[in-house]
């Protein structure tokens, strides 16, 4: 009886296994992307997926990953909506993908992370920078960007080195990312600086006159203002701040790595922000930017396209190391990756919880152009622990 059961079980298992490759060829890596190609995340997910596509085309033209696994992409638009993200992720998982790409923001990525964890499929967000994403998202959720806490540490150390002493931070509790200034505040205080005030705003608020009046009335005057606000809030904020005559140094983060920031004229002059890379002459990033221009017929205007390219390179390295397209094997291999050469930075996952170790770049806006301030490494013991909410 037991033998009969075993045989039946074996047959069933064999039958079930034989069914899987029927939809997914063994020599194919199926990647599902559930990203915000329309809506609020489109400025980030759009370019990220363009860069991702360049890497996919390159790899496939060279015969696939390791000359073995051709990449097949199934792309879905989440309309930047969290509920739609989980629907798209579920559909992709049901379609038998090996790797899932989620939106470039932590909040909708959480929706997909739970599904990916249940299905034991590795999931990657191209540009989410909240260090809580892989922590709360589980073992199968990976990020691909310098963490908010790391970016904030680099900015705070830079501000401290400039001799800036009295800070004001403006954050929004609406998303994980917009609370980045709270990390800045922690580090800046640790370095001996003073945080004169912590203002909040609502995403999409547009009118910052009340906050600006507060900043202006601070005594002693504030000499550095830090915010993670992005479009459309950030341009409105900095224009109103400068209009009120506040000349304090303003520090932003990667969300404002966008053409609008460089077209703000006098208001944005001298602004410094942290991002993921800079195309110095002869760098890999410059090479990527040329490829981008050749494929899409226009210059890339944001770092997020290169970030998308790097994400595919990480997945490629993971599949190479795993030697298979089996999701669990890819996940384990990625968690062990070290010094992967991306075009923006070297990328290491080994020893992290899924938030990669990557270089942070500080950029200054000078006459409407990018100026490299530096690519400093943060002091490790200053980096604050992820803030769980």
């Amino acid at each position: 009886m037991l033998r009969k059961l075993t045989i039946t079980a074996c047959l069933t298992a064999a039958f079930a296994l034989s069914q899987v490759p029927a939809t997914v060829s063994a020599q194919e890596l199926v990647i599902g992307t559930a990203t915000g190609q329309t809506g609020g995340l489109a400025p980030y997910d759009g370019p990220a997926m363009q860069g991702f596509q360049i890497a996919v085309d390159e790899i496939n033209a060279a015969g696939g990953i390791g000359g073995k696994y051709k990449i097949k992409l199934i792309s879905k638009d989440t309309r930047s909506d969290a509920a739609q993200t989980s629907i798209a992720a579920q559909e992709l998982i049901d379609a038998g993908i090996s790797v899932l790409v989620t939106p470039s923001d932590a909040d909708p990525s959480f929706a997909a992370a739970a599904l990916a964890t249940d299905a034991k499929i590795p999931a990657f967000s191209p540009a989410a920078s909240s260090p809580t994403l892989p922590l709360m998202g589980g073992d199968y959720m990976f990020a691909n960007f310098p963490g908010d806490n790391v970016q904030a540490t680099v900015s705070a150390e830079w501000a401290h080195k400039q001799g800036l002493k009295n800070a004001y931070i403006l954050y929004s509790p609406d998303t994980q990312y917009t609370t980045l200034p709270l990390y800045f505040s922690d580090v800046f205080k640790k370095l001996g600086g003073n945080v004169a005030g912590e203002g909040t705003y609502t995403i999409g608020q547009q009118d910052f006159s009340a906050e600006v009046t507060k900043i202006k009335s601070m005594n002693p005057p504030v000499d550095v203002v830090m915010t993670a606000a992005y479009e459309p809030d950030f341009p409105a904020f900095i224009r109103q701040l400068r209009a009120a005559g506040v000349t304090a140094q303003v520090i932003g983060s990667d969300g404002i790595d966008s053409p609008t920031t460089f077209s703000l004229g006098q208001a944005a002059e001298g602004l410094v922000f942290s991002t993921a890379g800079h195309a110095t002459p002869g760098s890999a990033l410059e090479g990527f930017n040329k490829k981008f221009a050749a494929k899409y017929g226009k210059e890339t205007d944001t770092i997020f396209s290169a970030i998308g390219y790097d994400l595919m390179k990480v997945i490629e390295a993971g599949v190479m190391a795993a030697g298979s397209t089996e999701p669990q094997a890819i996940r384990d291999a990625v968690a062990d990756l070290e010094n992967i050469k991306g075009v923006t930075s070297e990328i290491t996952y080994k020893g992290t919880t899924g938030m990669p170790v990557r270089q942070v770049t500080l950029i200054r806006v000078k006459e409407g152009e990018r100026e490299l301030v530096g690519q400093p490494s943060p002091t490790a013991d200053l980096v604050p622990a992820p803030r769980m909410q």
Partner: protein
Amino acid sequence: MEIFIQQTINAISLGGTYALLALGLAIVFSIMGMINFAHGELMTITGYTLMYCGLAGFPFLVAAPVAIGVAILAAVIMERVAFRPVRNSSGATMLVTSFAVAVILQTLFQNLISTRSQAVILPDMLAQSIHFGSLSIGINQILSISITLVVLVALNWFLRRTILGMAMRAAAEDFSVTRLMGVRANGVIAGAFAISGALAGVAGVLWVAQRASVDPLMGFIPVLKAFIAAILGGLGSLTGAVAGGFALGFIEIYLAAYLPDHIQPYREALALGMVILLLLLRPNGLVPAFNVGREKV
């Protein structure tokens, strides 16, 4: 004290923009009994016109009137194409139609222009301010306050002194009787849309002058604020819309200015809570419309 005065100026400036927006909704509502949720998209159209004018090298002083003109045209076309066929339908039908128009326009902007935010080139002057002692008033704020004033006075004159204006006021009170007097319904309604387009255009220019960028979904938040302001003021009442707009501006600015830091994250909730409280005290709004609940059109 200086800070209080400064915050009050901030509140007047923001309230003025809300008032213009709410007025745009109210003028259509007073005549057709419909909230036009595509009103925000008229602002987006204004924004894109400003952007293209900037790229074509037009100075801002030329671009702004052109943008307002395009908004008026768009509003009239919107009425002709989308709302005239459903004019005699139920309120729900018209409401859903306006949502549909809004979504269709947003998708068109995304597909035909860009999903990304586009920068709008503005004169540097708009990011400067005039200082009176320790007070500083942004050029933007001065423009916003003075333009709001001019528009309110002009609208008042138009509604009281011109034939079309009087016809519109009459239609708002009793459309059937107005039609019996020989006033053409199409003309009055098209006029109402043209004015709402002009108001959206002016508010759109002020809004974009503040944010310096335009994106496909930018109309949503202003129309939401306008809706809150119009309800607060008393739906269908023009004076009410202005009062509601200013009330909302004052509530938002004073909360942002004087709430302690640790309560600030609940600001939006508190602001809406105060709106609800005001509505509990005055269910028909601050300045109720003359004919609440009567059949329209």
